[in-house]
Every structure is written in structure tokens, then in C-alpha cells.
């Protein structure tokens, strides 16, 4: 038996009082060393079997009770407290920002009572004692004392945004005039203000699609202006004026192309944004933005006339100078309709050398020419042209037959 004054705990052997740390070890130990005590062994086994039976099965949950309401009540109280405290800080901060001049320190102390220095012997934040090297400083917002290394410094610019987040202090007179100046505040006030600032930023933050879309619209607006300028320059250049430089027109076109690329990428990004499955219209909206942008690029930007080449421009200029010299000839009037001229198609010249056979009959000669044209048109995949040329070839053949008949009749 154990001594009355000592209490042992653990998986103890009832015979030798040795702690064996686990039920299995205890049973093995007992079988090895105390095998003669069978009834005790059995009782030990029974105890642990019963234990396993009871606790190895999953337990039914006991009675539950919701503490959410209690939690909410506590939280509300704390939030209310925090909000009022933060608001007080902001009101003080607003006043502090208006202080300037030589009596600033006095004004600061009127706003909030500064804690008397003799009451605080150690910094409340780092617990180190104040002395000549570690001097006392006051938080300008709550008047509490801390050491220099535990002070936080709130820049005036950030303070302005905290006080007036929307208009960003733009309609306020520049409060202190000292740029880059800081307000010394304590850790506690800093946390309160920082918390509020983060909430504000979070609230003002737009969804990513809005950000991308406004970026897209901004670029589109810029493109609109560039295109207007481009058309103005283009019209001026092709009418032979020297107001603008061709290089400028070309670089403007590059700018437009770059911007088009950019809005294309932006619209692609919008279309590929992950969609909340609960909002089926969001996907449609994203795709429509993408489609609208592609149509805009295709119909509006790709139809822009290419800048004239240097040679073309010189010809235009020469043409214009002739037109100026000869006043009786009216210069070509700009047509009211928008005319888009694409480069046309023509087969390579069939020269005398390449004509397959020099025929006596112009009809036969023309048939050869048209056959050659058909081959060229087919190679160029100009199938409408092929059709027209085929039609003509049939006509030529028909005429040739009629001509042969007539000649035969004459003979």
C-alpha cells in the first residue's frame, strides 16, 4: 500500500506500484511478473474493456445553447464604444489640423488635457523608465504619455484624407501649410484611426470589373480624340496641304493601333473574369463588353484610311501645285459620301512575249489572254473574277464559232 502522505497517479501496478504509462503496458507487465494473481489481472482487464466500450463509440452531443445573441450584444457595445472613441479622435484631429502658428502647443493642450508628467515614470507601451535619454512625449490626440520609440507619426496628408475622405481635403484651406509634417500619436489612437481608414478604403473600392471598365472607357475616349485628330491630319495631307507632317500621321496611327490593342486586351480580361454562378447576367454583361469592344475596333478603327506613302504624297502635292497654277480647272471637290477605296485586283500584264501563241485572229488571241487571266485569278483566289472571266470566255468561243460559220458560208 502507498504511504498516506504521498499520492501517486498513472497506470500503476497494484502489486509493485510501478507507473507503466499505458493500459497495455500495465497488462503485459502484470502477466509477466504477477501471473499468479489471475483475479486481479481480470479485474484490471475488465476496467479497461469497460473504458473502451464507453469511449470508443462517438458520443451524442449534449444539450446546446446559442450564445450568438449574447456575443452580438457584447460586440455591439464594444463597437459603439469604439465608434464614439474614433469619432472623438477624428473631431480632435480635424481641429488639430487647423492649428498653426506659434501658440500651436498651447492650442493642442487646450484641445485635450495632457497627462501630468510626474504621474508617469515608465512608458506604458514598453515599460522602460523615463530619464534624460528617454524623454516623455504626449499623444496629440488623447494626451497620454509614451516614449519616443513608442510614438507613431501620422503625416498631415493622411490625416487630411482621414478627416475628409471624399473630397480629399481639396476644398479645405491648406491647414498647416507645412508639407511633410507629422502628428505624434500613441499606439492606441493609431490603431483606431488605421482601422477606420482601412474600412473606408474597403468601402470605396470598386469591384474589379468596374475598375477595368472605367479604364477601358478612358482609353476609348482617348482613342476618340486621337482618331478625330488623325482624320483631320489625313484629310489635310491628302488634299495636298503642308500643315501636318506625314511622320506625325504615321506615329498617330501607331498610337491608335497600340490603344486598340490595349482596349482589346482589357475587354478580353473583362470577358475572362470569374463569374459568380449566382449572377447569370454578369457573364452576359462581360461578354457584351467584349463584343462591343471588338465591334468598335473592327468597324471604327480598322476602317481608318492608311497614311499615304511619301511618293503618293509628293504626287498629291505636285497635283495641287498644278491645280493652283491653272485656276480654270476646278480642284476635285471632297465628295459628301464617305468613300473607302481598297486596292483592286488585276492580273499580271500579258506581254507580247508571254502570250502563248501569236494568233492571227484577235479573237483567238483574246481567248488565250482570258484563259491566262482565269489561271491567275484562281491562284489569287479571286473566284468572282474567275466567274466573270469564264463567262467572257464562253462569249468569245460563241463569237468565234459564229465567225467560223460565216467564213465557211462565204467559201
Amino acid at each position, binding site marked *: 500500500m502507498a504511504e498516506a502522505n504521498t499520492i501517486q497517479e498513472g497506470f500503476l501496478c497494484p502489486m509493485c506500484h510501478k507507473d507503466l504509462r499505458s493500459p497495455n503496458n500495465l497488462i503485459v507487465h502484470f502477466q509477466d511478473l504477477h501471473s499468479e494473481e489471475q483475479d486481479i489481472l481480470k479485474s484490471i482487464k475488465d476496467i479497461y474493456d469497460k473504458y473502451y466500450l464507453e469511449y470508443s463509440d462517438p458520443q451524442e452531443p449534449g444539450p446546446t445553447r446559442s450564445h450568438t445573441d449574447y456575443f452580438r450584444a457584447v460586440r455591439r457595445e464594444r463597437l459603439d464604444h469604439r465608434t464614439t472613441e474614433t469619432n472623438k479622435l477624428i473631431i480632435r484631429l480635424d481641429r488639430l489640423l487647423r492649428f498653426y502658428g506659434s501658440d500651436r502647443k498651447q492650442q493642442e493642450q487646450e484641445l485635450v488635457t495632457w497627462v501630468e508628467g510626474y504621474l508617469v515614470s515608465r512608458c506604458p507601451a514598453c515599460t522602460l523608465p523615463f530619464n534624460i535619454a528617454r524623454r516623455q512625449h504626449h499623444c496629440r490626440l488623447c494626451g497620454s504619455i509614451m516614449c519616443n520609440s513608442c510614438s507613431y507619426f501620422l503625416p498631415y496628408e493622411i490625416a487630411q484624407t482621414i478627416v475628409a475622405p471624399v473630397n480629399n481635403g481639396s476644398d479645405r484651406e491648406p491647414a498647416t501649410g507645412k508639407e511633410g509634417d507629422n502628428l505624434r500619436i500613441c499606439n492606441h489612437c493609431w490603431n483606431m484611426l488605421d482601422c477606420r481608414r482601412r474600412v473606408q478604403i474597403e468601402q470605396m473600392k470598386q469591384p474589379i470589373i468596374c475598375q477595368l471598365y472605367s479604364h477601358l472607357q478612358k482609353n476609348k475616349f482617348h482613342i476618340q480624340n486621337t482618331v478625330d485628330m488623325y482624320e483631320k491630319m489625313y484629310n489635310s495631307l491628302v488634299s495636298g496641304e503642308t500643315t501636318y507632317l506625314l511622320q506625325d500621321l504615321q506615329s498617330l496611327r501607331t498610337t491608335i493601333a497600340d490603344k486598340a490593342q490595349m482596349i482589346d486586351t482589357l475587354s478580353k480580361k473583362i470577358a475572362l473574369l470569374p463569374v459568380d454562378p449566382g449572377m447569370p447576367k454578369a457573364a452576359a454583361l462581360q461578354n457584351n463588353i467584349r463584343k462591343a469592344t471588338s465591334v468598335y475596333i473592327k*468597324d471604327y478603327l480598322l476602317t481608318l484610311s492608311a497614311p499615304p506613302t511619301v511618293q*503618293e504624297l509628293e*504626287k*498629291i502635292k*505636285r*497635283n495641287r501645285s*498644278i*491645280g493652283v497654277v*491653272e485656276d*480654270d*480647272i476646278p480642284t*476635285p471637290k471632297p*465628295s459628301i*459620301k*464617305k*468613300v*473607302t*477605296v*481598297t*486596292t*483592286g*485586283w*488585276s*492580273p499580271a*500584264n*500579258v*506581254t*507580247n512575249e508571254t*502570250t502563248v501563241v501569236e494568233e492571227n485572229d*484577235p*479573237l483567238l*488571241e*483574246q481567248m488565250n*489572254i*482570258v484563259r491566262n*487571266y482565269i489561271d491567275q485569278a484562281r491562284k489569287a483566289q*479571286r473566284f*468572282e*473574277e474567275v466567274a*466573270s*472571266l469564264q463567262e*467572257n470566255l464562253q*462569249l*468569245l468561243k460563241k*463569237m468565234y464559232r459564229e465567225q467560223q460559220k460565216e467564213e465557211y458560208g462565204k467559201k
Partner: protein
Amino acid sequence: MASETTEAGKMANRAVAAQRPNGSTQGKICQFKLVLLGESAVGKSSLVLRFVKGQFHEYQESTIGAAFLTQTICLDDTTVKFEIWDTAGQERYHSLAPMYYRGAQAAIVVYDITNQDTFGRAKTWVKELQRQASPTIVIALAGNKQDLANKRMVEFEEAQTYADENGLLFMETSAKTAMNVNDIFLAIEV
């Protein structure tokens, strides 16, 4: 008969319009067959080359038979596809010309303003067209080589009067400086 075909044409137009209620993008597509006639070396091929490719060759080779070129132009919402037959001016190929002007909606008769004979030849072409070609054919008269106006032999007024009397479109052109080239082709279409 004629009224029936126009009715059918209107119906077809309406059908096209119905397919495109907003009518925003491309409207109709027209094919337009055009033939160039005139004395040799007045600049028929040069005019076409300028219109189709925007090029000009100082030494343009003489055309054999008839050359074929195409050009597509967008006028507002209408796409016009020109199929141009540029005939050879040499007398040898004169027999080919009727084949090309018979099927054409328009003809440009070209003369050289520095050569009175070519103007006379142009008049003959106009007469032939009025007799032989389709009665609805649009004929335009082009006084080419306007850039050589200092060697002018055919007065502008003379040609203008002739054109007015015969109901022709008339412009002086220059394939070299591109003056009035696109304009004359577009004037025909409009």
C-alpha cells in the same frame, strides 16, 4: 415587262432591308461592268491602273486584246464592285469591242487632250455606243493627259459642249497626277 422587273427589283431590295432592320453595317453590294474605249495611246490602261492600283507607269505597254481588272469601293453603306474591261485601242482589236460594251453598264470613252484626232475618234466611239450598246448605258467622256495642258489641242469648252449635247458625263483627267481619276469612276456609279 420592264415594270415587272423593276417591281421584282424593289421586292428584292425590300427583302434585303427586312433582313437588316437596323441597316447599320454593309447594305447592298452592286456589280458594275465598265468598259474603256478610245484611240490607242490616249491612256486608257493608265487611267484604270491608277484607279485600281494607284500606280502610274511612264512607259505603259500597249494593251493586247482586252485587259480585265476589278476594284471594290464602299460608298456609305453600298459596296460597288467594278469589273473593268480595258480594251486595246489598236484598230486590229476593234472587232472585240462590241463584245465588251454590249454587256457593260457604263463606258468611258477616252481621248488625249493634246491630240485632236483622238477626240474625233472618241466621237465615233460615242456614236457607235449610242447605236449598238444597251440604251441604258452610261457614257462618260474623259479628256486625259490633263497634266500636259500646255500642249493642249482640244479645248475644255469644246469637249464640254459636245458632252452636254450628247448627254455624256465629262471630265478632264490625268492618270499621272491622279486628277479626277477616282472622281470619274465614282461619277458614273452615282
